[in-house]
Each structure stands twice: as structure tokens, then as C-alpha cells.
């Protein structure tokens, strides 16, 4: 089928999914568990970028911050305020975890926008692990803090009695859909945006002089993607805060 597509390709050699292939960095072997792949490379770059921003940037510890320090401080305060607003004071205990998720997703998303980069957060495997981790942790916290009362999250006591079992069913389904939507939202957004850019780039390669239109479109989509990557990191973090709040205060919202 692949060869068929190759032979039938009349100029439009668009392979929007090529950019997501996980390959070994050295050689052409199979991808084992510990193989050094482009995933390793880009996650390493993500870690280095985070260290450069948050550790080297705040090296001065100045009361009047330098530029990089004020960026690091604004990110810190942003996540801190978000967590405190949504999950309350008790939620602040989990601040390092939320901050880790947020900064990893944000930096990985932004690095993924560099042309030629590999976007680690566009893979279901990566986002699903994070979403499942959030889901399991939040569920455990819920049962640990509230005991069996955590199930009150599904038993809406303000609804009429006759509706409660139906609502409970819906609530339980939506509860278990959470990790799926949580992970697929991020991966899907990343994948879709990058694939769209790649498709336009394929048009640009085939249109000759008229490739100026796809290129303008790529610039527009790139600007939109810049917004989307930040919003998706924010949304992932804020939904984590919302789930955490549900676990800490299952009764009232």
C-alpha cells in the first residue's frame, strides 16, 4: 500500500505523520525500552530548557528580578495562583507535582514548534501516562482524605431522588472518561496542529510560484499553534487542579 501511494503520488508527497515517528537516534535497530531515541533527545532538551529557565534564570535571587528571573517567577506565581484559586489552601501541598506537569508540557509543546523538532507531547503514550498518573493519584487522594465519602461525588444529593441513580451512572462514566479526554485533548491538539502545518508545507512544495499562499497559511497556523500550545499546557494543569479539588472537596464545588 505504501508503494502504491508512492507511485500514485503526482507531486503531492505529503506525509504529515512522518514527524511523529519514534526512531532510534543511532543506527536503525528496533525501538526497545531503553533505546536512545528522538524521544530521549527532545525530552533531554526539554529538561535542559527548564533548567536554563528556572534554575539559571533565578541564579541571582535578586529582590528586584532580572528578566529571566521575572519570567520564572511569573510562571511560578501563575501556577500557584491557579492551584490556590481552584483547589484551595489544601491543594498547595501538591504544588510541586502540578508545577512539574505544567512546566514539562509547556516547554515540550513550545520546543515541538521548532521546525524539524519532535513533539513528545503529541504521543498518546506520553500524555496517557501523565493523565493516568493524575487520575490514579487523584482517586487515591480522594479515598484517603474522605474515605468512602468520596463516592458522594457521584451521588448528587441536591438532585431529586428518582434521578440520582441515573445521574450517578453518568457521573461515573464521566469520571472514567476523564483520563481519556485529558490525554487525548493534549495529544490530539499537538498532533492536529503539526499535521496541518505539514500538510500546508506539502502544498507549498508542489505549487511552485503559488506556494506563497500555503506559506502565508503556515505562518498564520503557526501563530495559532503558538497560542494553542500554551493554552493546552494551561488546560492540562487547570483540569488537574479541578480533579484534585474534586478529590479534596467531593461535596461542594
Amino acid at each position, binding site marked *: *500500500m*505504501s508503494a502504491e501511494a508512492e507511485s500514485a503520488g503526482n507531486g503531492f508527497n505529503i*506525509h504529515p*505523520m*512522518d514527524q*511523529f*515517528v*519514534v*526512531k532510534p537516534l543511532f543506527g*536503525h535497530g*528496533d*525501538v*526497545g*525500552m*531503553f*533505546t536512545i*531515541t528522538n*524521544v*530521549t533527545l527532545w*525530552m*533531554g532538551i*526539554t*529538561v535542559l530548557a*527548564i*533548567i536554563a529557565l*528556572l*534554575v539559571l534564570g*533565578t541564579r541571582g*535571587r*535578586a*529582590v528586584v*528580578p532580572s528578566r529571566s*528571573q521575572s519570567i*520564572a*517567577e511569573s510562571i*511560578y*506565581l501563575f501556577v500557584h495562583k491557579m492551584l490556590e484559586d481552584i483547589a484551595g489552601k489544601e491543594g498547595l501541598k501538591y*504544588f*510541586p*507535582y502540578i*508545577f*512539574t*506537569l505544567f*512546566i*514539562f508540557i509547556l516547554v515540550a509543546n513550545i520546543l515541538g514548534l521548532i521546525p524539524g523538532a519532535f513533539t*513528545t507531547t*503529541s*504521543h*498518546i*503514550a*506520553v500524555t496517557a*501516562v*501523565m493523565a493516568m498518573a493524575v487520575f490514579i493519584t487523584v482517586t487515591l487522594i480522594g479515598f484517603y482524605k474522605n474515605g468512602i465519602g468520596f463516592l458522594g461525588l457521584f451521588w448528587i444529593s441536591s438532585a431529586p431522588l428518582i434521578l440520582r441513580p441515573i445521574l450517578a451512572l453518568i457521573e461515573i462514566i464521566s469520571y472514567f472518561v476523564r483520563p481519556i479526554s485529558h490525554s487525548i485533548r493534549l*495529544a490530539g491538539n499537538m*498532533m492536529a496542529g503539526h499535521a496541518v502545518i505539514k500538510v500546508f508545507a506539502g502544498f507549498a512544495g508542489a505549487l511552485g510560484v503559488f506556494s506563497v499562499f500555503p506559506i502565508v497559511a503556515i505562518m498564520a497556523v503557526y501563530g495559532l499553534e503558538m497560542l494553542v500550545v500554551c493554552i493546552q499546557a494551561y488546560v492540562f494543569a487547570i483540569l488537574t487542579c479541578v480533579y484534585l479539588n474534586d478529590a479534596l472537596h467531593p461535596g461542594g464545588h
Partner: protein
Amino acid sequence: MASETQSAASEHAVGMPQLDFATFPNQIFWLVVTLVVIFFVLNRIVIPRIASVLADRHDTIQRDLEKAEELKQKAVEAEEAYNKALADARVEASNIVVATKAVIQKDLDKAIAKADAEIAAKAAEGEVKIKEIRDNAVKAVKVVATDTAAAIIQSVMPAASDAKAIKTAVTARLKG
């Protein structure tokens, strides 16, 4: 079949690379390593550092605000003192003005009185002098008239020249 897919994948992606389950363990492993590293960097270095910087800044701002409040209080006090001094000075100035006015009035009165006295004395002296001058002039007129009358009579009718009668007549005429 699997190896065929694998070799094809290195050329071009067939299907979705996201659903190539062979790469999942690799991604998950490296993701966990990355997240653990980031977590330790954040938890050990970044969060304490930024928290301490923010606390320092909060303290500094608080201290500065307190200092500013103190300075403001001082400024208010200084303003009050200034206003009081200003009012005092105004009262004193008006007192001085009144006193000075009185002194000047007195001096003025004295000077006017003195000047009036001098003027009166000068006027009296002048009157005396004028009277003297007039008397002298009248006397001189009498002498000249007598002399003239005697000379005229002498030349017109020398026999009737009587010095005593001429004098009497001139005096009577001058009085008339």
C-alpha cells in the same frame, strides 16, 4: 509482517506512529525519567529558591511601606508645625505693623507740630520785617515829600517858605 512495518516506518509513517505500540515502553520509560528529573530539580532547587525570593520581596516591600508610612507621618507633623509657625509669624507681623504705625504717627505728629511752630515763627519775623520796611518806606516818603514840597515852595514863592508849616501840611496830606 511486523518487521515489514518496522522497515516501512523508517521510510515513511504508515498509519499513526502514535498507535505503534512497539515504541510505547521506550516513550514511557523516558517520560518517567524526564518527569522525575524535572520534579527533583523543581522541588529541590527552584521552588525553595523562588519562594524565598518572593518572601524576601514581600518583607522588603512591607518594610518600605512601613517606612513610607512613618515618613508620611513625619511629613504631616512637619506640615502642622510649619502651619503653626506661619500663623504665629502672621500674628507677630500684624502686631509689629500696628506698633510701628503708632510710633510713626507719633513722630509724624511731632514733626508736623515742629514744622508748624517754625513756620509760625518765620511768619511772625517776616511780618515784623515787612512792617519795619513799610515804616521806613513811609518815613522816607515823608522826608522826600517834605523836601520836595519845600523845594517847590522855595522856587515858586520864596517869601512864604515856612519849614514848620510845610511839614505839618505834608503830614496831614500823607495821613489823608
